[in-house]
């Protein structure tokens, strides 16, 4: 099950906790992986760890030109892009009344607009191949909202609506588009929370713990697989039951 031998996958945000684990899972299933991210060092380290079938493709997603060229760079390096995982994301949290236009725009640009452009950039190859998998990493807060994250929640909810629309358009070409919505996962992003914040969050999670990057990667691996061909336009919530949607 879930054999990706011969497939190629581009993963953004592969220098982060969840993205790195997604890359490991797809690579472990046999895929050739393109590791994209802003910080080259962790990407190189991950590529060295994975060995063969790993390409480093640094890209700053807040730079529109870099975003425009990434799909082509990935296709040149790997021969194609069969699987796209839009995992990169940033936060610029602030109370709504204090949120600056720049805080709003930068989160929309990286989390939503770059996702749109990367999806568009890989579609031609997928249409010709009559096979493709796009997995957009959303967030539980895109569905539930979260104080201080008006920008982030808007971008993450936007990814879901965008994924569904695209899923309609390309389903007949063997391309699926889905989202994975992680809850609270142990990463650098959630490390910043205080112990008080963490214990409050844990009371809201029926599983009683935070999730692991491996648990998100497993969901992505499923949606990227041949076995998930009949699953499209859906959002797979991986959140320990904190929001049962």
């Amino acid at each position, binding site marked *: 099950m879930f054999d990706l031998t011969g497939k190629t996958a581009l993963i953004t945000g592969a220098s982060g906790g969840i993205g790195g684990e997604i890359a490991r899972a797809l690579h472990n299933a046999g895929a050739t992986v393109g590791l994209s991210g802003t910080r080259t060092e962790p990407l190189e380290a991950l590529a060295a760890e994975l060995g063969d079938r790993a390409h480093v493709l640094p890209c700053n997603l807040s730079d529109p030109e870099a975003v425009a060229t990434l799909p082509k760079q990935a296709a040149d390096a790997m021969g194609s892009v069969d699987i796209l995982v839009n995992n990169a994301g940033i936060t610029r949290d602030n109370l709504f009344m204090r949120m600056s236009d720049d805080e709003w725009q930068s989160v929309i640009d990286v989390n939503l607009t770059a996702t749109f452009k990367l999806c568009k950039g890989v579609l031609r190859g997928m249409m010709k191949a009559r096979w493709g998998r796009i997995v957009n990493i959303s967030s539980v807060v895109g569905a539930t909202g979260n104080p201080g994250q008006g920008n982030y929640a808007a971008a993450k909810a936007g990814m879901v609506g965008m994924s569904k629309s695209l899923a309609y*358009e390309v389903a007949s*070409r063997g391309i699926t588009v889905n989202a994975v919505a992680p809850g609270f996962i142990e990463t650098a992003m959630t490390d910043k929370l205080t112990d008080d914040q963490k214990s409050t969050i844990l009371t809201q999670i029926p599983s009683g713990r935070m999730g692991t990057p491996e648990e998100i990667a497993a969901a992505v691996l499923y949606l990227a697989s041949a076995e998930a061909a009949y699953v499209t336009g859906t959002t797979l919530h991986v959140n320990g039951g904190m929001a049962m949607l």
Partner: protein
Amino acid sequence: MSDVADRVKKIVVEHLGVEEDKVVENASFIDDLGADSLDTVELVMAFEEEFGIEIPDDAAETIQTFGDAVKFINEAQ
């Protein structure tokens, strides 16, 4: 019939799975040849590759019939 028209016809026949004699000058891809909107995008992609040209989105929208396609490609080359 010109070489361009032959090559365009071949792409249309292969892509849409229609009879060659249906692909006439005024045949509309969508109304007469059974294409959906995504098919028309794919046809334009195929024309771009076959003839090594760029067809911008606003021009692509004007290519509705077999004749439109042949005319556009002849002018673009």
